[in-house]
């Protein structure tokens, strides 16, 4: 068979059923192979859309997503999605066509040094130089994307390799060897947990990625240790766990930030002390000893020195940490913090209060739902006011904070989980960044529900201008937005605008009961800000409120 046919066969060997991409000259042999393959290709309307759909596919299933692009501009358009996947450790395999090997290095038509370009945005990348290495490299790409700390892997395939002849061989997927952890370290960690008076578990995205959500909740149930979540960890801790205080960090809850500032032991599980979490680093959890659990040892001591660090697979490691604690006064304090700082949804006026709308939407979504969002104020409101029972149901661009994430990620999730209600919460700025993907929704008639919170502003940037730049609103006014309803209708979406909080309930009903894709365009006040907030450079206990 040809190299191109082999590529599709190997994808199928790895259980891939759907691929997102966009064709072009240097990848035409592979697109030709799709023509009579039962591997389904989804044409996106921009390679960035394809990369993000692969991210959505991966995140919503905790599996691998695959995207494809041609050489040159096709490959460069993938970069933002790959960077996003790298910072959030998402397993994506990207396949790019490259010009003929003989033309590489001659500035040939649509030639970009994709291998060179990929170095900063992938976990690893390959250039295939010999057709006899093609299958092996693809297998390695899948293994690398998923093993250890997951991440994006790119395979660049010159056109001559795609059209060359090669034999196809069966490939037994090797069973993954999990790292063994050190029992003495586990004992040391347990001793710290037993001694602690005010312990807090700080839960990141790594728990879900290790498929250890149940193990984590069993650990919490057994110990009743208070727990906070990062943005990417949301959905991991059961929402009804009594000592769960919500998200930590810049826009975290007061209860979470105060709990962590006061704790004497921080048990960090699959998180990485990101600056949006810690605030001013040297004031973060100032009295705490630290236990750091991760699959990636490079995270240990990168920002905060741990007292005990254990590399391991969470499915085995977390249960091994179960131990008895006696922390009744601390639990009482956490419960009091939760009561004192509970969210309030009563807002003056008739306008739509976005946090209240999202809270109602969250309560009314069917259990099997997935919510993706874009980046900005609306993203933080989703994190604060919607509740999730699985980390695979909350898809948010954490490390990279990439506007334009929401729509294509929802497309990937909807295709991966066709029986799921897939909702995008977006802002009027972000929506326009991958608006072309409405074409993908139309093409495949995907029943995605879009909630567009329109404040006619680049709201989050505007909020910072208001607070930290003397209200000098430079380039954040979007009052010349297009007619979003007309735009959506042009792509065959049902669409409706609401202005008042009295319209919210009916609008949610109508949206959820409509069979096909739907845009709910919600006009909100441009002065609404995200609270509470830890100002840049401040400590987490110095949260301010509007």
């Amino acid at each position, binding site marked *: 068979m040809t190299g191109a046919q082999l590529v599709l066969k190997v994808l199928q060997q790895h259980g891939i059923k759907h691929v997102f991409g966009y064709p072009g000259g240097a990848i035409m042999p592979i697109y030709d192979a799709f023509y009579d393959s039962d591997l389904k290709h989804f044409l996106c309307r921009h390679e960035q859309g394809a990369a993000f759909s692969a991210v959505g596919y991966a995140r919503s299933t905790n599996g691998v997503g695959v995207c494809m692009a041609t050489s040159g501009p096709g490959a460069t358009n993938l970069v933002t999605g790959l960077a996003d996947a790298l910072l959030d450790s998402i397993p994506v395999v990207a396949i790019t066509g490259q010009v003929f090997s003989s033309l590489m290095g001659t500035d040939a038509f649509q030639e970009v040094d994709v291998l060179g370009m990929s170095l900063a945005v992938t976990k690893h990348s390959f*250039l295939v130089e010999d057709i006899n290495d093609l299958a092996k490299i693809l297998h390695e790409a899948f293994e690398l994307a998923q093993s250890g700390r997951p991440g994006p892997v790119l395979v660049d395939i010159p056109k001559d390799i795609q059209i060359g002849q090669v034999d196809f061989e069966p490939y037994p997927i090797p069973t993954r060897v999990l790292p063994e952890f050190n029992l003495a370290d586990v004992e040391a960690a347990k001793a710290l947990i037993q001694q602690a008076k005010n312990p807090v578990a700080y839960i990141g995205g790594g728990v879900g990625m290790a498929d250890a959500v149940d193990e984590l909740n069993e650990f919490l149930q057994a110990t009743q240790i208070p727990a906070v979540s990062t943005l990417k960890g949301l959905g991991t801790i059961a929402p009804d766990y009594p000592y769960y205080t919500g998200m930590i960090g810049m826009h975290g809850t007061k209860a979470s930030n105060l709990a962590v500032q006061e704790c004497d032991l921080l048990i960090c599980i699959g998180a990485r002390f990101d600056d949006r979490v810690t605030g001013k680093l040297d004031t973060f959890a100032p009295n705490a000893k630290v236990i750091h659990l991760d699959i990636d040892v*490079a995270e*240990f001591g990168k920002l905060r020195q741990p007292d005990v660090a254990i590399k391991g697979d969470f499915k085995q490691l977390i249960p091994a940490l179960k131990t008895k604690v006696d922390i009744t006064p601390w639990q009482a304090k956490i419960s009091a913090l939760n009561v004192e700082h509970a969210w309030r949804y009563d807002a003056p006026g008739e306008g739509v209060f976005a946090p209240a709308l999202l809270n109602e939407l969250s309560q009314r979504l069917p259990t099997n739902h997935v919510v993706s969002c874009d980046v900005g104020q609306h993203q933080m409101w989703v994190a604060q006011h919607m509740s999730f029972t699985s980390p695979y149901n909350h898809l948010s661009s954490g490390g990279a904070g990439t506007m334009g994430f929401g729509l294509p990620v929802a497309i990937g999730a909807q295709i991966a989980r066709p029986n799921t209600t897939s909702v995008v919460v977006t802002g009027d700025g972000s929506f326009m960044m991958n608006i072309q993907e409405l074409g993908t929704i139309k093409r495949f008639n995907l029943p995605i529900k879009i909630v567009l919170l329109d404040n006619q502003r680049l709201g989050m940037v505007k909020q910072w201008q208001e607070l930290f730049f003397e209200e000098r609103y430079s380039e954040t006014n979007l009052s010349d937005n297009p007619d979003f309803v007309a735009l959506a209708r042009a792509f065959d979406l049902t669409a409706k605008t609401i202005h008042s909080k009295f319209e919210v309930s009916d609008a949610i009903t109508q949206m959820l009961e409509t069979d096909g894709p739907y845009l709910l365009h919600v006009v909100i006040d441009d002065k609404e800000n995200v609270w509470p907030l830890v100002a840049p450079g401040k400590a987490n206990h110095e949260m301010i409120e509007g």
Partner: protein
Amino acid sequence: MIRHRFNIVAKQQPATVERVLRVVRHRGFILQSVNVSSSDKAQVEIELTVSGERPIETLQTQLDKLYDIAHLELISADTAAQAASIRA
């Protein structure tokens, strides 16, 4: 500035050396010298001297994650460097 030396054995792959150098720069170290030699087609040896203020473990663990690197050894660091890494 504290100097550190690494001895690296890596797979001979397109971009192996570039990857190593990129990580050195990105993680906040300055390249003082580099010597690349290849005894056979499959393998490349890289001797690297870098300097920087950050804990060398940061660079060591990041380099160690590179897929092409088969063996990485931090072979010498002056006393100041050792003191810093003990503190870190």
